């Protein structure tokens, strides 16, 4: 949305004219809207509905749910603010957007928290019904921001949404006889605001109406009340005029969208489905073992709701139990998977070593969050990369892959299942709180068309020696309990290369250490060569990213390229082993810059592996990179390099 000159237009319903003329809509290539309110205001649902309607309008989109870690923070406080941001457009959308064009603020606290993210001249939709003195003070405002000039730089639409919602619902005559309380009626105000914003961006209400009817099938009066609020908000917007400060926009369909059936998907859903599909393709039962932790739990929830696909989920007593149960399940012939976030992954360290030593197929998902210890549970960071690579006792190599976007979690989960079973090794998948929660449109694949990778269990009667390794992959055979004549012992004590029984022979330990490393290094055979995401394959500057920084980096690099800057983007998915050609590829650039949401972990690995003078660009605020931040940093880097 283009920035427009600051101008404040305070609108109250009394000033709304009865004109029904549809103002001509201003066409935008993309726009960013942020819904923000109290934790109890239903902002995640509101945003989710806007996302659906936007997907239906065939825009590209990306979202960022940003909610507090407190389940129910005190009402009206700044730390209880919950927000949902969506960036959508007719062009390729790569992030949820830096700053927003429209802010829906349901209370003073939301206004307080979000205001500096709003573009100058941006539109604010305010619920004045929540601007009582009490709430204003609770949001730590000394004076009323509506009257002290602090909103001068924006276009403010002030409406008593609370009252308008009550009026709309009262119109149904529901309140008394159907037992809809005033509280319940008031709760519809998020749908009132949604209806208003729907009109602003010309979104269809039908998907939301249908959603409400299904969601509240058992309490139709609640569905009706919300629908009435939605329609009322929409109708009021329609009657307002540009002179009231209200612009209306149209965002065209995104061209060049690959044809097919789409849905929106979060990283957590994609991960869960990828694991389910990975197990199917391997022809194994999925046994998913986890202990709840933010932001990893949604994967457990999603799979627990899919047991009809022969999936077993196990909520263990702690993360150690979870990984050990997954190891036991793999040992007995299932695909054992465990999932957690940094603190839980730390607890799994010793058992990861057991899986490396016993050479079990195992997939470990780390949905990273910010900070050491408990840190910032709901905020995102990429600071567990070194933990994934090196965070275990002894020489303990395993495979590490990183997902770059919500939908990509699906592919990564399948690839992890394939490598784990083919090489008989743990595979760590790195996701993070940002991609776990964020959603994007996703072209739904046809599972029947995906390549199967059935595993070869060792069978009865075959020669068996528990160290009989595949000549190419060096994988040991998978001989599961229940198979006659293949009884053997397995464990975390060093085992003899020859017999698989325990051995403390010095030469043997050297050999086994080498074999374990060689096996993991050999996974490189199944990893595609590193390609250049955009830009030349050699030149002045390459930006190297991994994981969830993909969106902002690629947009920032594209923007700079359009401005004539010689910069390329390389995005690494296979963190260990690294793609074979990566060192040579990076050596073709004069400068290497590695943006990461940590203090420089991947850059360390690159410097270590390739003796290249790669530089870090680091951020640890618990928030994803902004495009403009990256653009500025890249320009500064180039300037300094001159």
């Amino acid at each position: 949305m283009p920035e427009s000159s600051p101008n404040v237009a305070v609108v109250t319903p009394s000033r709304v004219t009865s004109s029904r003329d549809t103002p001509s809509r201003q066409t935008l290539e993309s726009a960013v809207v942020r819904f923000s309110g109290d934790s109890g205001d239903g902002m995640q649902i509101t945003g989710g509905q806007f996302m659906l309607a936007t997907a239906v309008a065939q825009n590209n989109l990306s979202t960022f749910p940003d909610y507090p870690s407190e389940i129910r923070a005190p009402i009206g406080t700044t730390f209880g603010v919950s927000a949902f941001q969506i960036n959508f457009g007719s062009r390729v959308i790569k992030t949820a957007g830096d700053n927003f064009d429209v802010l829906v603020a349901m209370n003073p606290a939301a206004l307080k928290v979000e205001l500096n993210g709003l573009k100058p001249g941006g539109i604010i939709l305010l619920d004045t019904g929540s601007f009582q003195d009490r709430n204003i003070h609770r949001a730590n405002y000394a004076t009323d921001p509506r009257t002290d000039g602090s909103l001068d730089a924006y276009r403010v639409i002030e409406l008593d949404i609370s009252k308008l919602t009550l009026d709309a619902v009262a119109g149904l005559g529901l309140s008394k006889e159907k037992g809809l309380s005033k509280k319940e009626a008031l709760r519809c105000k998020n749908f009132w605001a949604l209806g208003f914003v729907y009109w602003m961006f010309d979104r269809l209400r039908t998907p939301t109406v249908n959603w409400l009817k299904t969601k509240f099938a058992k309490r139709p009066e609640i569905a009706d009340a919300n629908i009435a609020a939605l329609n009322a908000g929409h109708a009021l917007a329609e009657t307002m005029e540009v002179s009231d400060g209200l612009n209306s926009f149209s965002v065209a369909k995104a061209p060049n969208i690959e044809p097919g059936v789409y849905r929106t998907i979060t990283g957590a859903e994609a991960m869960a489905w990828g694991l389910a599909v990975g197990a199917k393709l391997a022809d194994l039962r999925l046994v998913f073992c986890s202990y709840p932790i933010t932001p990893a739990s949604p994967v457990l929830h999603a799979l627990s709701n899919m047991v009809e696909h022969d999936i077993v989920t196990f909520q263990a007593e702690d993360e150690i139990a979870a990984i050990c149960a997954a190891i036991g399940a793999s040992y007995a012939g299932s695909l054992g998977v465990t999932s957690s976030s940094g603190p839980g992954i730390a607890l799994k360290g010793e058992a990861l070593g057991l899986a490396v030593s016993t050479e079990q197929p195992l997939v470990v998902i780390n949905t990273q969050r910010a900070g050491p210890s408990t840190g910032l549970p709901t905020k995102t960071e990429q600071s567990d990369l070194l933990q994934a690579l090196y965070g275990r006792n002894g020489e303990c190599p395993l495979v590490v892959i990183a997902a770059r976007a919500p939908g990509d979690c699906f592919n990564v989960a399948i690839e992890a299942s394939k490598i784990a079973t083919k090489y008989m090794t743990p595979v760590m998948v790195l996701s993070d709180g940002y991609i776990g929660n964020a959603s994007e449109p996703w072209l739904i694949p046809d599972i029947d068309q995906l390549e199967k990778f059935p595993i070869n269990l060792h069978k009865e009667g075959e020669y068996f020696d528990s160290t009989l390794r595949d000549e190419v992959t060096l994988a040991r055979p998978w001989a599961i309990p229940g198979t006659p004549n293949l009884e053997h012992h397995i464990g975390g004590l060093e085992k003899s290369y020859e017999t698989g029984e325990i051995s403390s022979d010095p030469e043997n330990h050297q050999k086994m250490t080498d074999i374990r490393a060689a096996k993991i290094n050999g996974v490189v055979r199944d990893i595609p060569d590193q390609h250049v995401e955009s830009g030349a394959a050699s030149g002045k500057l390459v930006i190297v990213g991994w994981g969830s920084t993909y969106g902002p980096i690629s947009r920032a690099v594209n923007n700079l390229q359009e401005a004539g800057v010689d910069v390329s983007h390389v995005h690494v998915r296979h963190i260990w082993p690294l793609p074979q050609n990566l060192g040579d590829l990076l050596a073709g650039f004069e400068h290497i810059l590695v943006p990461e949401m940590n203090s420089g972990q991947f850059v360390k690995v690159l410097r270590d592996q390739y003796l290249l003078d790669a530089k870090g660009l680091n951020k640890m605020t618990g928030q994803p990179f902004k495009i403009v931040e990256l653009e500025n940093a890249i320009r500064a880097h180039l300037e300094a390099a001159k």
Partner: protein
Amino acid sequence: MTDTMTDTMTVSATETKLTAKDFVSDQEVRWCPGCGDYAILKAVQRTLADVEAKTENTVFVSGIGCASRFPYYMKTYGFHGIHGRAPSIATGIKLANPDLDVWVVSGDGDALSIGGNHFVHLLRRNVDVQFLLFNNEIYGLTKGQFSPTSRVGTRSPSTPHGSIENPLSATLVALGSGAHFVARGVDSAQKQLIATLTRAHAFKGTSFVEIFQNCIVFNDGIFSAFTAKDKAPDKQIYVEHGKPLLFGKDHTQGLRIKPGTLSLEAVVIGEQGITKDDVLLHNETDRALAALLADMNGDTLPIAIGVLYCKPGHIFEVEIRKMVQREISETTNSLNDVLRAGHTWTVPKEPE
């Protein structure tokens, strides 16, 4: 470090029936000579032969400790895990394949210290495994430190002035965790131990067996107050369901509820008008009685051996399988359908 297995254990009845020897692995046993673990190994191998277990269907899972070396000595599937975590590995095995016959072997440190959490939850879930706790009241493998079952005052390398902590009772923890089968045995009392292990094997659900095991090196004789030949009759009571709780040489002593209390007392038959009819019958389905029996410490009341408690309950992995099967039978959804559930939209092919 010699193998004390004898060759006289059993003679196979038919060609196919396995003998105890068929469960002996080719691995050299590394326990100290005279360690109680040998006797338990022998009893387990004998039990497996008696119950006609199949080597390929049997899995021994352990943590870390002297006791946890056990799987290496069995000619079955064996998984030597990490310290304290055997219950979790075993749970995963049963989730993957409920038909496997799984035995967990653990020590007092392994099960009650580092693995206490998993121990409690295994019992609570009632996963169908046999859980053998070799209690020697000491950390054997790490050279003799006191353990959570060591008595107050235990002198060990880490408590040279005597330990201060109170010990816990494995059987009471098990009962408190909701165990459905709680039993006790003594390493050297083979006949009773085999009978108890046989019951444990037959039980569906977690069968917990605490076995008093002598660590000849670091805690020798710690149980002799009730296991020594001359002490055992008066200081042990072997309990059997439906039978009177009698003990002592010639079974002249018995247990009864002390009148006016909720506790047990020992009585002598023939003294003060006490007859056999005054003695309590063992009811292994009575959890309160099991707790009273488990609490007897060999001081004024004898140590209870045998099956203290046995009351089947629903089994974790069986219920999970049932739930999964029910859901499978009630759906025609494919994974492709899951991906397409909820709101979807179609982007049509642009005309060329």
